[in-house]
């Protein structure tokens, strides 16, 4: 049986197994399983109403005081105050029944605003797929345009379906109540182990195929929002591995990324897993904090890109025997810059949307910080190249710089002030330039700078929380009281350690997982994921896709294809390429 048919059969078997498993776990685990609300007939009521400082309209009855606690004067006092407030509330309810009914409407509207916000910002992030496609294709060569664009097109459904089958469940299955969207608690099973006497959440186990107790409007909104974030991760390695990747191998990668490569680290940071709990469990600040995904989304994508590009090998002709680089200039800077603006626009969904609440007015600060970091990132890359490196303002580096600033601000955007945002972006712009040179020196071919933009600056973004978080936001984050504060604002070094642990974990775990999945995909691809060298030289559009990117255009393929120098003879040029 041909390798692709065999692969598809195995994937079909796997899918069947997951479907059966999910059918068995379709109901929320636990005895009083919350009731899902797929048509929003009951989501949002008086209990969702809060004022600006977060005080809830509905006062809940205080938990009964046990005999021991009643002897403690402090606890008894607190209980008495809470009981008094509750009794007052009950009296007011009786006196003004219309106000109670009105509160239900207000609560529904509040939740509706949050739904709207989450969905619309999710739509903006989906549009970033177009940005990635244009940036990557513009920075690659014309003869491979159809292939590069197609990878960026198909990663959208491939990643989404993997996330739908099991990725979302692994990542958010144990999230608990979705507070901003009505408090539905059907995602209520987190697989947890005990280490050092503390609970370590490892992955979620509800939400497969969005069935049963997951068929709830708020879960669907969360799924859509989180799925477009996952697809951002998924599309980053297509840039790092462009122009020398068999389309069939890319498709296999696509099947794995949304389903198993992305969700576990994501669960540990956003799904209530152990990295988020470093604060509660070990007193390390608020645990690993990552507001919109510098580590969860961008660093993960960058590390996958790094390992995959490294194992896949460089493009034919990129490196000479002595390690010097033969540049393959961008075929369309117009696309690259247009794509960068589309990404910057989409980032207005990426960062502010991560409040999951249009009623959390910190979104204004988040959006402005995002914008400022993109500006300083672009400026510092531009000036760094212009004044200190090549003496020309390189447009491709300006693009990378703007994106690096955006990646770096993604984690800290809610927790820093404008000054911090500017500095974070400025550092990112210089870091990305040096990083591009660094990987070139190490023989790792990254046609679009994806590893430098997303991997390196994703790490920087998280670490910068530990330095620049100014304590104006984040009270109660990851269950730790108090706002998030970094080293430069009197928060001590513990937040920085939590970020460092998270970043290191990402590098190690995602790195190892990627290496394993790479090997599996290579096996399923009949031994190698690269097209034959002659095909790579000719351009992969027709051989891999059957279609020209620019049918009817005369392309100067000789100019587009440097030949590696320093090897004994042209026939030996295979040694220029490391095939794994």
């Amino acid at each position, binding site marked *: 049986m041909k390798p692709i048919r065999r692969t598809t059969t195995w994937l079909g078997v796997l899918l069947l197994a997951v479907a059966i498993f999910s059918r068995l776990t379709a109901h929320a685990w636990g005895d009083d399983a919350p009731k899902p609300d797929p048509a929003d007939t009951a989501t949002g009521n008086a209990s969702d109403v809060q004022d600006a400082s977060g005080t809830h309209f509905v006062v809940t009855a205080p938990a009964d005081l046990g005999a021991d606690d009643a002897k403690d004067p402090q606890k008894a006092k607190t209980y008495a105050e809470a009981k008094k407030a509750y009794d007052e509330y009950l009296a007011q309810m009786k006196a003004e029944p219309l106000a109670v009914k009105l509160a239900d409407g207000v609560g529904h509207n509040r939740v509706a605003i949050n739904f709207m916000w989450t969905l619309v910002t999710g739509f903006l992030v989906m549009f970033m797929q177009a940005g990635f496609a244009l940036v990557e294709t513009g920075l690659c060569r014309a003869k491979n345009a159809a292939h590069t664009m197609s990878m960026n097109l198909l990663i959208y459904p491939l990643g989404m379906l993997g996330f739908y089958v099991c990725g979302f469940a692994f990542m958010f299955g144990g999230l608990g109540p979705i507070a901003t969207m009505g408090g539905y608690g059907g995602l209520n099973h987190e697989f947890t182990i005990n280490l050092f006497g503390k609970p370590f959440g490892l992955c979620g186990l509800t939400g497969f195929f969005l069935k049963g107790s997951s068929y709830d409007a708020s879960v669907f909104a969360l799924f859509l929002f989180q799925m477009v974030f996952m697809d951002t991760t998924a599309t980053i390695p297509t840039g790092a591995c462009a122009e020398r990747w068999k389309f069939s191998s890319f498709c296999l990668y696509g099947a794995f990324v949304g389903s198993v490569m992305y969700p576990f680290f994501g669960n540990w940071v956003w799904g209530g897993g152990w990295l988020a709990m470093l604060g509660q469990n070990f007193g390390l600040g608020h645990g690993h904090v990552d507001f919109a995904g510098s580590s969860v989304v961008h660093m993960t994508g960058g590390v996958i890109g790094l390992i995959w590009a490294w194992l896949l090998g460089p493009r034919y002709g990129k490196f000479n025997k002595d390690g*010097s*680089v*033969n*540049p393959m*200039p961008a075929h369309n800077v117009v696309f690259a810059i247009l794509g960068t603006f589309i990404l910057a626009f989409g980032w207005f969904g990426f960062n502010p949307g991560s409040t999951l609440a249009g009623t959390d007015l910190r979104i204004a600060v988040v959006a402005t910080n995002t914008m400022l970091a993109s500006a300083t990132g672009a400026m510092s890359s531009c000036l760094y190249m212009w004044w200190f*490196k*090549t003496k*020309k303002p*390189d447009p*491709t*580096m300006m693009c990378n710089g703007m994106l690096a600033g955006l990646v770096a601000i993604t984690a800290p955007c809610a927790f820093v002030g404008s000054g911090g945002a500017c500095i974070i972006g400025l550092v990112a712009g210089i870091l990305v*330039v040096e990083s*591009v*040179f660094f990987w*070139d020196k190490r023989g790792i071919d990254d046609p679009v*700078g994806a590893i430098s933009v997303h991997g390196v600056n994703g790490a920087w973004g998280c670490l910068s929380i530990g330095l620049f978080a100014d304590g104006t936001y984040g009270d109660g984050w990851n269950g730790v009281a108090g706002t998030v504060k970094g080293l430069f604002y009197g928060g001590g070094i513990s937040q920085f350690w939590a970020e460092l642990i998270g970043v290191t974990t990402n590098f190690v775990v995602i790195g190892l997982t990627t290496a394993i999945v790479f090997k599996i995909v290579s096996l399923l691809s009949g031994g190698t994921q690269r097209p034959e060298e002659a095909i790579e030289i000719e351009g992969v559009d027709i051989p891999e896709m059957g279609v020209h990117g620019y049918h009817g255009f005369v392309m100067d393929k000789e*100019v587009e294809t*440097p030949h590696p120098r320093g090897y004994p003879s042209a026939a030996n040029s295979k040694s220029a390429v490391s095939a794994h």
Partner: protein
Amino acid sequence: MKKIEAIVKPFKLEEVKEALAEIGIEGMTVTEVKGFGRQKGQTEIYRGSEYAVDFLPKIKIEIVLSDEKLDHAIEAITNTARTGKIGDGKIFVLLVEEVVRIRTGERGGAAV
């Protein structure tokens, strides 16, 4: 009958065409080519790494004309295409054996 193949800098094409029209030459074939002579290429830099651009874009003008007009044409091309800087180009003169106008079937001098 002679054929001129003139390699000139691309931005000179319009001037050369007008100068030739003034001396009565109203037909030509033009192609975009690339090449180098003693001008050599130049070094560009992309994202920190250098690469050599050996071939520079030029325009090739092909004209078939009668022997009387040959010297005038060479003078017209040379005067308009010259910039004085390296890379101005070259003119090649070839012998032509036969010329045919497809529409009418005319041959020889009448077809030029």
